[in-house]
Structures are given as structure tokens and as C-alpha cells.
């Protein structure tokens, strides 16, 4: 009996140690960061709109220049719980004290300056594919934004999701800096579009269906999904059934600029906000996104049909 007890105890200790080791936060290779040139705030402004930071981190309902005050406080109500977006303005309540290394580790490894995992409601699984120079430029731009001392509240989650360490295991499955798709004979425009969509644009976070533990199903990349927040669905943006095969590349680029579909319906829901970001992009970048979307594998809708 005592032997069995000892055996179970050692299993528990081994399991615990294994969990602790496997769930440990990883950090960026500092030598890669050292290879970047000092951040350019003007370039960073483009990256800011590519990344859509304002959509979640501006105060709820902010419009115009108020979208540049990243005071946080937006509540993302999901089946996993309610995530409250943090203040990321250059203030004491925000990221005034952060080094570039702190910022880059948050963006690409989902790790806070004090070494805690961030919940993947913050789309670092996409931002992990960003070029470090873009992150350095973005960091420089964000330092120029208006500060806010707003205190964004804590997340409202329940056990076991309150155990942040568990996210380390999840990251082992889903955090990668590698491209999602391999596209044969990709033109420069398609490559640029792939970077924007899979990286800073983080389109797949909403347009790709997720499994039970919230991991993206990359076999249905951009095929549309049940909305992570609230009711409804996010559209299929591949060329498959239910998708946007009938849209030309120009139609896609124009929809991102103006919010209008080819038949002059207008994009609604959270995409209306995304259009506010995308309308600031260089026209060639919107064209690149369109070129990529026309080049990706077609899938039928990634969400179940209406009952």
C-alpha cells in the first residue's frame, strides 16, 4: 500500500514538474531584436493600422482621433469568459515603462514584462509572424500617442482558465512564427498580402473556425466561423461555396477601403471597425491582401448552416 502511495506521489510530482517545465513562458531571442534599426514612428503608424490595435484598445465607441487613445476597457464576451482589453497607451497605467524588448515579447510570445502568459484573446498567435522591424516601428509610433490613466478592469474568467500557466501548454500547440499557408509561385503582391493577413492583420483570428480549446483549424483557413463574441457568424472569405469567389481582387480592395461590397451593401458588425483601420493602409497593401485572398485554397463555409 505504501509503495502504491509512493508511486502515485512520485507520478504527481513528475506530472507537476512536467507541467511546470512545459508551460514556462518563452522569450524572444534578444540578438534578433538587437539587429533591428531604431523604430521609425511614421512607418509605425502604417503598422498600427495594419494591426488594428485601436479596434480593441481604444475606449468602447471611440471615433476619429479618439481611436488613438488606447485606454482599453473594451469587454470581449466569449464562451471562455469576458476579457477586458488593457490600457496600452504610453502612461503609467499603460505601457510607459515598457522597453522595446518588453513590447516585442508581448507581441510575438504573448508574455508580459513580469513573465506571465497573456490570454490569446490578444492575437499574438498572428503577431508572432510579424517582422521585428515592424514591431520596433510600431513601438516608436505608440510612444507618440496620447497617454490615458484609465484603469481597465480585470478579466472575468472562471477556473481552470484562471490558471494562466496553462496557456503555456496551449502555446506549444498554436504559437508559431511560421506562415500558415504555402503558396506555390506566389507573386510579390501575394507574399505581401500573406504577411499582412496572417501576421499584423490577424484576419484568421475571427475568420477561421476554432476547436474546443480555442485553437484555429488551419485546414479551414479563413473559411468563416461562428463569432467568438456574441451571436452570429463571421463570413467565409475564401473562394469556396458561401465565400467571395464572385468578388474580383479590385472588389476586395475597394471593400476594405470603403466598406462597400460589390453590390453596394456595406460591411457590418466588427468588420465596419476593421474597415476604419484598413482605409488607412497604402492602396498597394489593400491590393496585396486582395491578391492573397484570391490565391488561397477555397473552402465551403467553416460554420454550420442555419437550423
Amino acid at each position, binding site marked *: 500500500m505504501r509503495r502504491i502511495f509512493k508511486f502515485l506521489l512520485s507520478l504527481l510530482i513528475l506530472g507537476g514538474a512536467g507541467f511546470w517545465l512545459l508551460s514556462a513562458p518563452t522569450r524572444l531571442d534578444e540578438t534578433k531584436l538587437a539587429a533591428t534599426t531604431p523604430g521609425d514612428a511614421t512607418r509605425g503608424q502604417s503598422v498600427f493600422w495594419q494591426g488594428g490595435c485601436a479596434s480593441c484598445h481604444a475606449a468602447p465607441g471611440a471615433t476619429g482621433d479618439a481611436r488613438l487613445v488606447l485606454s482599453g476597457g473594451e469587454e470581449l464576451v466569449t464562451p471562455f469568459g469576458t476579457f477586458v482589453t488593457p490600457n496600452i497607451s504610453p502612461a503609467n497605467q499603460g505601457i510607459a515603462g515598457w522597453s522595446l524588448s518588453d513590447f516585442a515579447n508581448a507581441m510575438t510570445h504573448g508574455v508580459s514584462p513580469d513573465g506571465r502568459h497573456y490570454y490569446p484573446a490578444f492575437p499574438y498567435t498572428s503577431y508572432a509572424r510579424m517582422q521585428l522591424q515592424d514591431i520596433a516601428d510600431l513601438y516608436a509610433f505608440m510612444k507618440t500617442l496620447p497617454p490615458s490613466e484609465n484603469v481597465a478592469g480585470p478579466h472575468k474568467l472562471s477556473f481552470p482558465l484562471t490558471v494562466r500557466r496553462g496557456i503555456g501548454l496551449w502555446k506549444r500547440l498554436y504559437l508559431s512564427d511560421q506562415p500558415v499557408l504555402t503558396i506555390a509561385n506566389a507573386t510579390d503582391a501575394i507574399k505581401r498580402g500573406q504577411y499582412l493577413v496572417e501576421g499584423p492583420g490577424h484576419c484568421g483570428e475571427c475568420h477561421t473556425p476554432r476547436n474546443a480549446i480555442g485553437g484555429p483549424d488551419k485546414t479551414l483557413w479563413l473559411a468563416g466561423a461562428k463569432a467568438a463574441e456574441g451571436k*452570429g*457568424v463571421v463570413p467565409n472569405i475564401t473562394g469556396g461555396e458561401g465565400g467571395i469567389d464572385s468578388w474580383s481582387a479590385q472588389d476586395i480592395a475597394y471593400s476594405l477601403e470603403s466598406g462597400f461590397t460589390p453590390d453596394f451593401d456595406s460591411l*457590418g*458588425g466588427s468588420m*465596419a*471597425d476593421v474597415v476604419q483601420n484598413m482605409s488607412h493602409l497604402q492602396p498597394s497593401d489593400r491590393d496585396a491582401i486582395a491578391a492573397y485572398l484570391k490565391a488561397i485554397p477555397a473552402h465551403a463555409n467553416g*460554420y454550420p448552416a442555419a437550423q
Partner: protein
Amino acid sequence: MKRLIALSAAPLLALAVFATTASADPIADRQALMKDQGKAVGSIAPIAKGEKTFDAATVMTALKKINDDAQKLDPATLFPAGSDTGDTTASPKIWEDNAAFVAAIDKYKADVAAAVAADPKDLESFKTAFNQVTQNCGTCHQAFRIKKN
């Protein structure tokens, strides 16, 4: 003859009754109205984009069309309670926060009326009017529309 008049008047009478009470199929009616406005916007968007040359008459025809349709947007008859189910992308928020929805529609009506009154005679003033009108599309659809399937 009297009978003929009576017969031909009957549908008109029915139409009059129909117009003053709730619409029989508000979802179909509001969708038709929205599509009609989209068509009119689509007819002048290429001018705003710079793909077609500016023509004051074309622009005015379209703006008037949008205005006519916009003023028909009556939240009470086109979005009655209970019309949030079926083949519709109307968000429940329309009824949860009806005052905000009505305010958004009123703003749109005012903006379109102002665009017609501005009577744009050149490309720049048209673009201003066009943007003022069409920004309402995204704002309202962001808050009050949800894709369900």
C-alpha cells in the same frame, strides 16, 4: 361602368390600407429598400472613386433617389417587434436599444437631405456629400446588423 370603377379601385383601397398599417412582410420590404439604396450608391460610387467623370445631373438623380428611399425608412413599420427572426440580418440590438437605432436612422435621413440640398456642382463637393451620406452605412451596420448564417 360603376362596377368597373369599384373593381379597379379595390386594389388601390387595399394599397392605401396597407400603407397606413404595419407592412405584411417588413423583412422583405426593408431589404428591398436597402438594396435600392445600394443600387443608387453604386451608380455614383465610381465617380467618387475617380473611375467615371463627374456629372452633376447623374449625381443629383442618384442623391434624390437615395433621399426618397431614406425618408421611407420608418423604424416602427419596417422594424416592428418580432421581425428579428427569419431570413434577416437585423441585430437584436435594434429592439434592445431602439432609441439609438431611431437616432441613427434620423441622422442618416438628415445627412441625405443635406446632401441633396447642397446640390454638388463639382467633384470635390460631391465627394464631401457622398462621404457624409455613406459613412452612415457602416456606422449603422456595425451596431445594428449581425450575420447569422
